[in-house]
Each structure stands twice: as C-alpha cells, then as structure tokens.
C-alpha cells in the first residue's frame, strides 16, 4: 500500500510545507509566505518606516529563505518561524549597513522645534513610557539614523524585542562578548547623541 500524501492545507505544519517546497511545489511556498509575512514585516518595521524599504526587506528575506530551505530541512536546528526571523533580522542589518554607507545626516539637519522636543525628552527624567514621552516617530528615526547599523540592531533587539545577550548572540551569529561590547557602545553612543540636545 502506497503512503497517502495529504493535499496542502492550512493545517499542514511548517516543516511539512518546507519538505513539499524542497520537492518543487511552489504553491506550498506561497502558503509559508502568507503565514509568516506579517512577522517579517513587523521585524522590518523595527528599523524602517517607508513601505518600499519594508517590502524590500520582506522580499530579500523570503528569497534567501527559499534558497536556504534545503539546508533548513536537512538540519532543522530551529523552528521555521525562528529561522525565518533570523534571516529577517540579518536582512535588516544588511540594509542598515547599506544605508549607513551613504548616510550624510548630521546635527545640522535637526530643526529648532525638533531640538526642543528632544531636549524636553532628555531633560525630563520622570518620563517612563512611550505614550507619556509622545515623541514623534519621524524624529526618533532621524535621531537613530545617526547611529551605526550595529548599534541600531543591538538596541532594537535589547529594548524592543527584549532578547537576552545569549539570544542576540545566537540570532546574529555573534559571540556573547561581541554582543556585550556592542550593547555598551550602542548605549554610550546614544547617550552621547542625546547629551548634545540637553
């Protein structure tokens, strides 16, 4: 008796879908895309604001994932979602590095009102939440663009994703010592930036 192959359905697990895609079924890859695109877009949204940039990161992530599927199905060290998130963060990191090469932003680009807003935020020590700070997102982006790609990725992973040093090390394929050094430098750089607005 031949083994029966279930048709692809919404209940099919990620691992089974990956196996089907590796055998050459493109429809299964579309299902994987639909399942995980939101998470990838959310990761991209941690670093980028504009829709075209986020779409580029999504595209880059899924293309890399597609060509790496055979490797994933062979080793299966992570869940598919976790493995895809690793690719997404690394794609964001590559994109940030590309941007930082052509970055020419400086303090002179900040208007008086923006400087005042940042000054208010940095001088108010009792501020504890984003809502109470009510800082403009564009302004936050503008300020963070002054940091290096490494600084940004570490700060987001620590402060937004809430990951530990060990988790970041595993995610970015860095050593724990490198993560600690990067985190220290990132905090120092951001403090130095904010001090200029005090």
């Amino acid at each position, binding site marked *: 008796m031949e083994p029966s192959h279930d048709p692809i359905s919404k209940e099919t697990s990620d691992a089974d879908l990956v196996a089907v895609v590796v055998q050459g079924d493109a429809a299964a890859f579309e299902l994987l*895309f639909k399942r995980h695109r*939101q998470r990838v877009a959310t990761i991209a*949204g941690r670093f980028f604001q504009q829709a075209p940039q986020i*779409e580029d990161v999504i595209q880059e992530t899924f293309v890399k994932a597609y060509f790496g599927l055979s490797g994933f199905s062979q080793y299966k060290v992570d869940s598919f979602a976790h493995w895809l998130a690793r690719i997404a963060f690394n794609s964001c990191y590559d994109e940030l590095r590309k941007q930082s090469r052509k970055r020419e932003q400086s303090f002179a680009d900040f208007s008086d009102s923006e400087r005042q807003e940042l000054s208010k935020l940095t001088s108010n020590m009792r501020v504890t939440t984003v809502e109470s700070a009510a800082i403009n997102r564009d302004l936050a982006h503008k300020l963070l663009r002054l940091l290096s790609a490494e600084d940004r990725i570490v700060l987001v992973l620590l402060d937004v994703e809430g990951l530990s040093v060990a988790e970041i090390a595993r995610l970015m394929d860095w050593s724990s010592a490198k993560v600690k050094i990067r985190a220290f430098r990132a905090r120092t750089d951001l403090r130095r930036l904010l001090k200029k607005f005090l």
Partner: protein
Amino acid sequence: MTKERDSISEEGLDRAGRIITQAAILSETEAGEIAASPFLFARIQARIAAERQGSDVGIWTAFWSISKRAIPAMMIVAALSLGLSFYFTGNKKQPAAFSVDAYLGTNESGVENLVFAERRPLTRDEVLATIISRDEKELGR
C-alpha cells in the same frame, strides 16, 4: 554627589534612548498593511526565477569574465619570461677553459702553441720532426 548626579543623568539618558528606540518602530497594523501588498509575492517569485536563471548561466559568465582578464595577463607573463630567457642566454659568454698556454705564458712560440692547442700527446715522429726542422734552420743560418 556629582557622581550620583552623573549616574542619574546617565540613567535618564538611557531611559530617553529606550523611549526613542521604541517610538521609532512601526505598529503591527501598519506592518501588516505593508505585508498584505498584492504584488509582493509575485515580486518574490520573479526574483527567485531570475536568480535561478542567473545561477545557471552564472558559472559560464564567471568563467568567461575571468578568462577575459586571465588569458592576456598570462600571455604577457609568458612573453616577458621568454624575452628575458633569450636576453640572458644570448649575452652569456662561455667561461674560458683552463689553458696551459695561458698559464705557462708560451703563446708567443708558434710551434709549441700549435702543439698545445691540439691538446693531444705528441707523437715521437712529431718530436723528431720538430728537432730536425730546428736543426735545419740552425744549419741554414
């Protein structure tokens, strides 16, 4: 006291930094809207197809691009090495062999010179002929 104030201000700056980092992120809803873009998967499929096609012709393209540079470079190197080898072998003089004539300073005496130049032991007839011819010369004088 100053140290305490400094540490407080550093804490405050770190807190402000966290707020700024969190303020910069896009909401889940906004990210979801971008992810639901209708042509996104079509773009991914097109990119996969293009990369797959590119990897097939990629090997030959890479080989051709390397060959285009490597072949002329190798020809230049070969021509240079050939030229240099001709130059050095052409100019090189053969080292002079050890000459007894030069060593004994007998080059001026014609007969002995000829005998030594032949570099073979003298036969008895030759020695006799030399003595006779010398005697005849002396008698002639």
